[in-house]
Structures are given as structure tokens and as C-alpha cells.
């Protein structure tokens, strides 16, 4: 049986699945139920000066009939008394000593940071997560993403936290920036032991087109919220990978953003996350989704011969590069397996209207023909084909040696003739 235990910046967990700082990690009883269901760790919903929330708070994005494929919220940090949260942290640690509790924090002044860090650690926190990411409400008060978007402020506050903390400090980064790398490096300069990302993306989830108000609606008004859920995974994966491949970075990463199942978790790990955090899928389905996450991850690891998590963390990072390093002479063409083809001709429509007009109907058969001399190998036909393994992208030996754009520009390496560019 593969070993699922993890170490993220000195925070040890029996498995890589953590509840993100969010409604599912709002109280002790919730987190205790989550640990019972199998979750490895939990990031307690952000402590600070308790706030007052609005009704309603959540918005769902339905895509193709799938409810909650995207999700947003305008909820703020904890609204519960600090003493209550601290007491429940202590009680939860007593009941589940092996499951790490990372306490998310968001306050303003250095004195407040010092005070709340001491109280959190005294209560039993195994780690701290600095919430520099919340993109709504709190940032209007100079906290959350207002900190995360300013590397100097980020570095300074991280420095305070690291100075006053005896447990590892993770900095939670906001994706609402042009380039994530300077912000990760700022956290590193501040002394952070790791980062978690992404927080939610500034968003309007939808508009009530009869009342002329965005959603979620609070009376006659709405506001921008934080976007999350399955739909944000590609954005999150990119930001995780951008930091993981940055040579000057090198800190452990706790990946967040659209993790719904074991496969998503594997993707985050292969791009450099040692743990993953989940909120939205738990909000939609409940804690018991973790059974499949653990089971599926173990099965994946067995299939690939990984005995420990650290053997797979970052395994796909070397495969993530810049466009200028891609081999322009690598050529593929689409092949249609006539025996498998059911004649829907989705590939014909996609190629004619959305690509390079090289897949054509043929007389006497519903199976289309690929004009390989025109096929640019774009993949669109394969993406729309409903039959498994019917369309494959086959490499072509065009006689050209590999050549990237950078090599072409800098070394004059020859490129193959363009296809479909007439």
C-alpha cells in the first residue's frame, strides 16, 4: 500500500487532502466529522476580528447542465468569537492529534498579528496560513488580496508572522495578479515555509436578467465575489506550475483551486503541490468525497510504482516550459479508424468551421477522409469525436530535425514548411 503521508513546509499530514479555509472548515464539529471521514488536515476558516455576513452569499455557475461547475462567494472571514474557535481548535487537536490543523489568519497591525499568532499556537495550531488572498470585502479594509497584491506588504507581514510563530507559516496567495511569481518570491523573502494557492478569483458569477442585478443578490445590490470550483482548475494549475518551475522559489506548495477528485489532486501534485486543499466540492457533495480521493490516489500510485507522495510531487514540472522551447518540427496528423467511426461527422464540422478545412465527407460512406497534406495536427477533431480511440494523432516523419523557435531565431535551425497557411 503506498504511503500517503506528506510534509508541507514542516506540517506533517497522514494524507495530502486538506479542507481549505472556508465554510466546510468553519467549526470544530465540522472538522472532526471531516477527519472521521478521512481528511488528512484542515485549514481553519480565517480567524481575525469577527465580521458580519450578508444574505445571500453564494452563487453557482451552471455549465451544460452541470450545477456548481463554477462557484463564487461573498462571505468574509469567521463570524464566530475568537475564544470559541480557539477552544474548538484545542478540542479537535485533542481528539485527532495526528491530523494537522492549520489556522488561517487575517488581521491588520503587527500587534494584532503577534497576539493572534500566539493564541492560535497556544490553542494547538500545527501551522499558520496567512490569508493574503480574499478578493472581496476584506480587501476593501486593507487586508486579504490588498496585501497579496503588494509584494512589499506581503513580505513585511510574512516577516512578522514568521518572527512570532513557532510553527510553520504558509502564505495563501491571490490569483488576482498579472504574474504570480513575484508574489511567491515576496513570501519567500519574508521567510514563509510554504505557500498555498490559489485563493479565489475576482468575479461576477452571473446576472439576474429579470431583476437587472448581478448574483448573488443582497436585496437590490450585489458585489464581486471570489470564483472557485471545478472551472478554475486550469488557472490554478498554471499558477502552481509557474512557481514550481521558478528556480529561485523552491518552497513547498499546497495546491488549491477546483480540486474535486483524486485525478485533480494528482495533477496538482505532478505540478509541484505536496498537499491539496478542497472547499467547493465538499460544499456541493459533503466530506465523504475523500474516500474516493484516497482510494483513487492509492490506485494511481500503485499503477505508476510510486511508494511515497514525494516521488510524484513535481514530476510534470520539467515538462512545463515556454512556447519558445517547443519543437516546431514535431508534426502530427489525424487518423480516423474507419472500423470505429460511427459517422456523426462532428469532426467534419469542427475542422471545416473551426480549424483548417482538411476533413471531408466522402461519397458512399459516412466515414470522413483526412487530407493529411493539409492537416495541421491541431487535435480539434479528436476532442469532438465521441468514440474512444477512433481519432488518433499520429506523428509524421517529415525528415526535419527538432528545432524550437528560440533555436531557429538564435541558431538558424531550419523549420519544416508550414501547413494550411495559404
Amino acid at each position, binding site marked *: 500500500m503506498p504511503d500517503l503521508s506528506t510534509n508541507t513546509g514542516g506540517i506533517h499530514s497522514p494524507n495530502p487532502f486538506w479542507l481549505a479555509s472556508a465554510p466546510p472548515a468553519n467549526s470544530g464539529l465540522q472538522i472532526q466529522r471531516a477527519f472521521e471521514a478521512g481528511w488528512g488536515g484542515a485549514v481553519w476558516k480565517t480567524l481575525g476580528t469577527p465580521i458580519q455576513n450578508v444574505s445571500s452569499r453564494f452563487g453557482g455557475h451552471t455549465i451544460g447542465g452541470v450545477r456548481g461547475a463554477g462557484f463564487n462567494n461573498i462571505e468574509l472571514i469567521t463570524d464566530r468569537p475568537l475564544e470559541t474557535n480557539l477552544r474548538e481548535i484545542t478540542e479537535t487537536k485533542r481528539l485527532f492529534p495526528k491530523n494537522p490543523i492549520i489556522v488561517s489568519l487575517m488581521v491588520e497591525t503587527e500587534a494584532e498579528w503577534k497576539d493572534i499568532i500566539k493564541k492560535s499556537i497556544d490553542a494547538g495550531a500545527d501551522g499558520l496560513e496567512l490569508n493574503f488572498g480574499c478578493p472581496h470585502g476584506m480587501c476593501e479594509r486593507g487586508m486579504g488580496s490588498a496585501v497579496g497584491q503588494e509584494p512589499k506588504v506581503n513580505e513585511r507581514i510574512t516577516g512578522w508572522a514568521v518572527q512570532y510563530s513557532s510553527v510553520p507559516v504558509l502564505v495563501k496567495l491571490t490569483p488576482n495578479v498579472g504574474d504570480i511569481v513575484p508574489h511567491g518570491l515576496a513570501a519567500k523573502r519574508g521567510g514563509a515555509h510554504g505557500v498555498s494557492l490559489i485563493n479565489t478569483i475576482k468575479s461576477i458569477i452571473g446576472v439576474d436578467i429579470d431583476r437587472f442585478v448581478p448574483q448573488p443578490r443582497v436585496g437590490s445590490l450585489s458585489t464581486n465575489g471570489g470564483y472557485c470550483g471545478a472551472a478554475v482548475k486550469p488557472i490554478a494549475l498554471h499558477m502552481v506550475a509557474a512557481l514550481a518551475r521558478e528556480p529561485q522559489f523552491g518552497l513547498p506548495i499546497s495546491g488549491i483551486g477546483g480540486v474535486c477528485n483524486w485525478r485533480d489532486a494528482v495533477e496538482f501534485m505532478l505540478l509541484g503541490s505536496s498537499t491539496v486543499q478542497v472547499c467547493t466540492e465538499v460544499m456541493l457533495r459533503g466530506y465523504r468525497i475523500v474516500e474516493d480521493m484516497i482510494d483513487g490516489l492509492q490506485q494511481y500510485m500503485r499503477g505508476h510504482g510510486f511508494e511515497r507522495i514525494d516521488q510524484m510531487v513535481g514530476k510534470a514540472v520539467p515538462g512545463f516550459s515556454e512556447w519558445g522551447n517547443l519543437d516546431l518540427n514535431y508534426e502530427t496528423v489525424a487518423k480516423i479508424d474507419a472500423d470505429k467511426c460511427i459517422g456523426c461527422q462532428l469532426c467534419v464540422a469542427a475542422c471545416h468551421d473551426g480549424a483548417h478545412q482538411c476533413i471531408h465527407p466522402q461519397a458512399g460512406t459516412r466515414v470522413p477522409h483526412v487530407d493529411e497534406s493539409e492537416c495541421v495536427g491541431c487535435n480539434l477533431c479528436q476532442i469532438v469525436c465521441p468514440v*474512444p480511440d477512433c481519432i488518433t494523432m499520429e506523428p509524421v516523419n517529415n525528415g526535419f530535425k527538432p528545432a524550437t523557435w528560440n533555436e531557429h531565431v538564435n541558431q538558424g535551425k531550419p523549420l519544416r514548411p508550414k501547413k494550411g497557411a495559404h
Partner: protein
Amino acid sequence: MTAPLPAQRSETAFADFKLPLMRDAAVAEANRCLFCSDAPCVNACPTHIDIPQFIRKIATDNVHGSAKTIFESNILGMSCARVCPVEVLCVGACVYNDLEQPPIAIGKLQRYATDTAFEKGWRFFEAGKPTGRKVALIGAGPASLAAAHELRRLGHACTIFEKRATIGGLNTFGVAPYKMKADRSLTEAEWVLAIGGIEVKTGVTVGKDITLEQLEKDFDAVFMGAGLGADSALGLPGENLQGVHGAVAWIEHMKLAKADMGAVKHAVIVGGGNTAIDAVREVKGLGVPSVTMLYRGTREGMSGYQHEWDAALQEGVSASWQSLPVAFEGTGRVQRVQCVKLDASKKPIAGTEFTLQADLVLLAIGQSKLGDMLASLGGITVNKGVIQVNAHGFTGRAKWYAGGDCTNGGKEVVNAAAEGNAAARAIDAAIMKGAARA
């Protein structure tokens, strides 16, 4: 050892009535599942498979985990996916029914996961550390197979006594071939037995070749899972004519050998239960042009499932409701059935006599109960041939447990699996009482 099946079997002519799902369709269907909390489908399943969880694992492409979730609760999950009347169990309980929307195709999803497991050769369970305890099981059908597998996981040695040459019980020789064929049942039985440590003695009739007292003496516990006995007879004139058979016997013959259907133009099946409907559909499927079900009650009052009868109707059969056979006639071979109509209290109505042409008659009016074979043992109660047990399969006599058709009077494979499983755990608790596990 179990005898191999002949290649020439009538049942091989049948195609699956319910088609399997391919991967994309399975994933799409799985994603439609709401993942209900305290899901009604789970409560509707006698083996309480965690259905939302196994469906979610299909949605995430964790088919291995999905199959494990199924087999954890029901080691016969592969055959149950095919033979369960899901319309009145899990699928019937799906909350989508309340929305008047198609319920989740739970049976087909279970088939997808379990077929994949068989195809890939996955195994999920190992025998427990040996306890030194021995359990005898009577009959090699679903109840005993489920019980033996669970007993092996708990470390007890098992010996199954089966009077036939072939194992699997009704799964092998009784299931309608458009649901599952005999070879699939044998594949499953062998997959279950591959946990190791289960000795199967075929061709051994308990009560004849070995006495009950001997079993009780030689083993720490005995599980009775012998199912039901021979077809019941009507005792009518002409019942011994050629072409008049008990339905269960005829179905077994059709599944395990080649039934001669060449001359049959008109078939009459007597009964209104699920065996009768199976027989009707099987005879029709083998090419008999005219197939009539003769039942003494009404369509609404029949014990056979309505969805099964709907399917039979679509295949072109007919029924004569509130009708009773009074004699079978013919020269050597049956040619006619003399019948009379019945009133609402099932009394014959004078002057309503009628004749049906028939060159094949199958009697599906029940099977004898085997419970009486245990009646000689003190402490065991047998009521009309049915062995009385508590919720854990205990008969009331120390060492003796029972489950499956011989205790429930004839239900589904999934009931037998659940009862076998429950009895195995009760046996374990009893024979390990006070003992430390290695």
C-alpha cells in the same frame, strides 16, 4: 471440481436484454447521480452497497475503487448487476423517480464496474489468518458462496457440499439467459472461490451421502443454503404426457443443454410468478410462435414483476388470466390443455370451459421446500418447508445457520447474498466467542 458446460446450449441463442454501458456513457450516467446523503437506493439494496460512492468512483474513473466498494458489500455484485430486479430495488428507490425523470441506471453502472474488474483480473480480498475453525455449507448457490467468502475473510476453513455436478446454484441453471448465461455464473463462482481455502465437494447429497449428525460432529458450524427443491405438480390428468415439464427443470435443461424446440408451435406456461414470466420469455425467444401464460389470478394480482411482464408483452406473448388448467390431452405427447375460467374468488365458472392448443406445457406453480430435511434436528423450526431463522440466519439449534431461498421461500440472488453474509458474521461471532484472533 465443477463439471464444464457443454458448448451446445439453447441459452447461447439469447442476446442481453439490457445492454452494457461503454466508458463515456457510464461516466456521463455516473455524473448524473446526485450523490444523495443517506441515499434511498442504499436502503433499498438488501446488501446495502454504498451506491452513491461506487457511482462517484466511476465518475472519477476510479473503476477499481468502484468495484471494491461494490464487492465489499456484495461479493456477488457482478451477477447481481445483471439479475437484480433493480426496478423494484435500488433504481425504484432513486429520488429522480420523484422528479418523474429517468432514475440512475444503477444496475448498468454496477455491471460496468464489476465487468471491468473481471476483465482486468482484479481481486480485492484475502483470506484471514487461519482460526482453526471449520464451517460446512450445504449447497453451492449464491447464499453459500457469499457466506463462504465472508467466512474465509474471517479466517475459517470452509467445505461446501453440492449435490449437483455444477456449482453456482440458480445463478448457473436458473437465471434467464437474456440476463446472464451459465458460463458467466461459473466464472463468478470460481472468482469467489479463488480466495482459497474453500473445498467444494460436488455430487454429494447431504442426508444421503453424509448425515446431518456427521456434519454437526465434524464442523464448528453448518450453514444451510440449499435453496428450493423440485417443481411442484398439479396432479391433473395427462400431466405425465411428453412435453409437460416443470418450468425450473426445463429452464435448467435449456441453460445447460440443447432443448429440442423444433416441433413446438404452441406453448402454454402455467403460473403467474417470475419463473412463469421467465419461462414465457425464454420459450418465445427460442422461436415458438404462440406462447400463452395461463394464470388463475389477474394481471394486477400476479406475483411476477410488472416490468418483466411488460417486456414479455413487447416480445409478443399473450396471457389467459383467471384461467385454470383441468387436464392435459394428447396421444403420447401433449396436444391440448383443457381449461376453465375462474371468478374473483378463484372458483371455476360453469360453462366457461375452453381448449388451448399446446405441444409444450411448463408448470411454474412453485417448488418444493427443502427445509424438512432439517426438521429431524431438535431446536430447528420448519414452517411449510421453510426454515425459520433470526435476522442473523441462526436457526435456534447451536451450530446451525441458514440463508437464501430455503429460509425466505424463494427471493432474489441479492437476498441470498445478504443472508449468507449476515450468517457468516454471526457464525464468526459464535465460533470465536472468547477466542483470541491470531
